[in-house]
């Protein structure tokens, strides 16, 4: 899922300072699961804004509600008229949600309430970890299901580098060395010799480095008029 964190309240207050009639809009999917932008967080954020504005003597009308997904037009459409009634919408969706709403309805003043972080999963309650960069050319079959592009700080394909110590990365003892983990798994499976093959430079054109990406699937498109 997409993992995000709420922006610092001070930054949110600054972004919303010119506006009186504000909606804090939660998103019911990824960011609800990672406890950053669901209904609960939308309500908390709305009341924090209200209190702050009262303290400043600049009362504002702040309401909070949530839609299932801000990243699909059909869900945005369900509340579009209501959203048009606000001066500002603080979206607690990921960056995809913010942009989907702005693209769909350019009149809306939509601002990000979250910092979108990464694709990852909850390691344990309260801890999320990144494990996919969406590079467009998956190598997990070569690396025993452990992604070196994401989880190695240098995204190396022929690791581990000389900074790997006690299973940890040179950047921090809190970060596992992905190549140490890959080596461990290959050893268990008696496949260490595959590490001796020199992996060629990666084709990054399938990733964001090739420019913003769009996927067109002719087989599932609906032709106009049908």
């Amino acid at each position, binding site marked *: 899922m997409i993992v995000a964190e709420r922006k610092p309240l001070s930054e949110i207050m600054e972004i919303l300072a010119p506006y009186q009639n504000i909606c804090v809009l939660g998103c019911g999917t990824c960011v609800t699961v990672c406890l950053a932008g669901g209904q609960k967080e939308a309500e908390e954020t709305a009341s924090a804004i209200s209190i702050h504005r009262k303290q400043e003597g600049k009362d504002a009308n702040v309401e909070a509600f949530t839609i299932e997904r801000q990243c699909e037009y059909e869900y945005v459409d369900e509340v579009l008229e209501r959203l048009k009634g606000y001066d500002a919408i603080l979206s607690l969706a990921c960056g995809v949600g913010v942009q989907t709403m702005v693209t769909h309805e350019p009149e809306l003043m939509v601002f990000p309430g979250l910092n979108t972080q990464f694709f990852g999963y909850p390691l344990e309650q309260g801890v999320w970890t990144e494990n996919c960069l969406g590079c467009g050319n998956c190598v997990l079959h070569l690396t025993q299901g452990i992604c070196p592009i994401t989880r190695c700080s240098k995204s190396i*394909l*022929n690791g581990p580098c*000389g*900074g*790997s*110590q006690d299973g940890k990365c040179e*950047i921090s003892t809190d970060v596992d*060395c992905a190549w140490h983990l890959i080596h461990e798994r290959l050893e268990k499976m008696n496949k260490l010799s595959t590490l*001796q093959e020199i992996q060629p430079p990666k084709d990054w054109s399938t990733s964001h480095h090739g420019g913003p990406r769009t996927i067109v699937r002719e087989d599932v498109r609906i032709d106009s008029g049908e």
Partner: protein
Amino acid sequence: MIAGSNLEKVINSGEFVVTGELGPPKSADGDFIRHHAEMLQNHVDAFNITDNQTAIVRTSSIACGNILVQMGLDPIVQMTVRDRNRIAIQSDILGASALGIKNMLCLSGDHQNFGNEPGSKGVYDIDSMQLIKAVKDMRDENKFIGGEELEAPVSLFIGAVENPFADPFDYRVDRLEKKINAGANFIQTQGIFDLERFREWMKRVVDRGLHEKATILAGIIPMKSLGAARYMKNNVAGITIPDEMVDRLKGTEKDKRKEEGLNICIETIQQCQEIEGVGGVHVMAVAWEEVVPDIVERAGLYPRPSL
């Protein structure tokens, strides 16, 4: 002869090699590098020039390498994959070669979050293994990474690094072999303090005959003080210093610790000379360059061959 550098000539002569290291300044002061090069010029066969070491911005390694070429000295220009994509890397390989640089050391580089621009974007388009192979292919296959042909091949003697003290230990000889297969002509190791582990690593290197395919230069770092030893032990990625060595410095009177650090350094060189397969030493005394002549002389490695 591959590139005809002084380093390559000394290796071919069978002499025990001594390389040194120069760190470019955080300024455009060319005299800084000239001054340090002069200090070492009679005592080392070639000079590593670091490439924004520890991710701190300094004068470019290729520019400083060119200063050495103008002085008639033999630079080993370090090239990391941290700051350049494959377009810039290959362009710089051509540029270095055009400036008369004949040795290139290929490495990944310390991660950018260690340095003075921690907010910078790390490039890591290719890795150090792929860099070694890229230089080799530009030299021997006349080909760029993308497959296009060069108008004329480059002539470079290729170096790589290996860290016998990194983990997993069992993989460290495999990795060396992989780097040699990728094209490394010589190898410089991380600074050696744990001789027992280094001996074990070298034994495995020799068992596979890797020392005959590439020259292994043992990394040597003189310890200036107890603080420096502790700092390296605790803060420098990939360096391990046994407690006994720190205790030896600690047990020495404070004003004699510098001398004791030198004694340790010279003993380490002498012990490395005894280890089968070690072809030379790489003395890293950045910010303490003036001590190198003394180390080389006391280790019995002076004068250097003139070829």
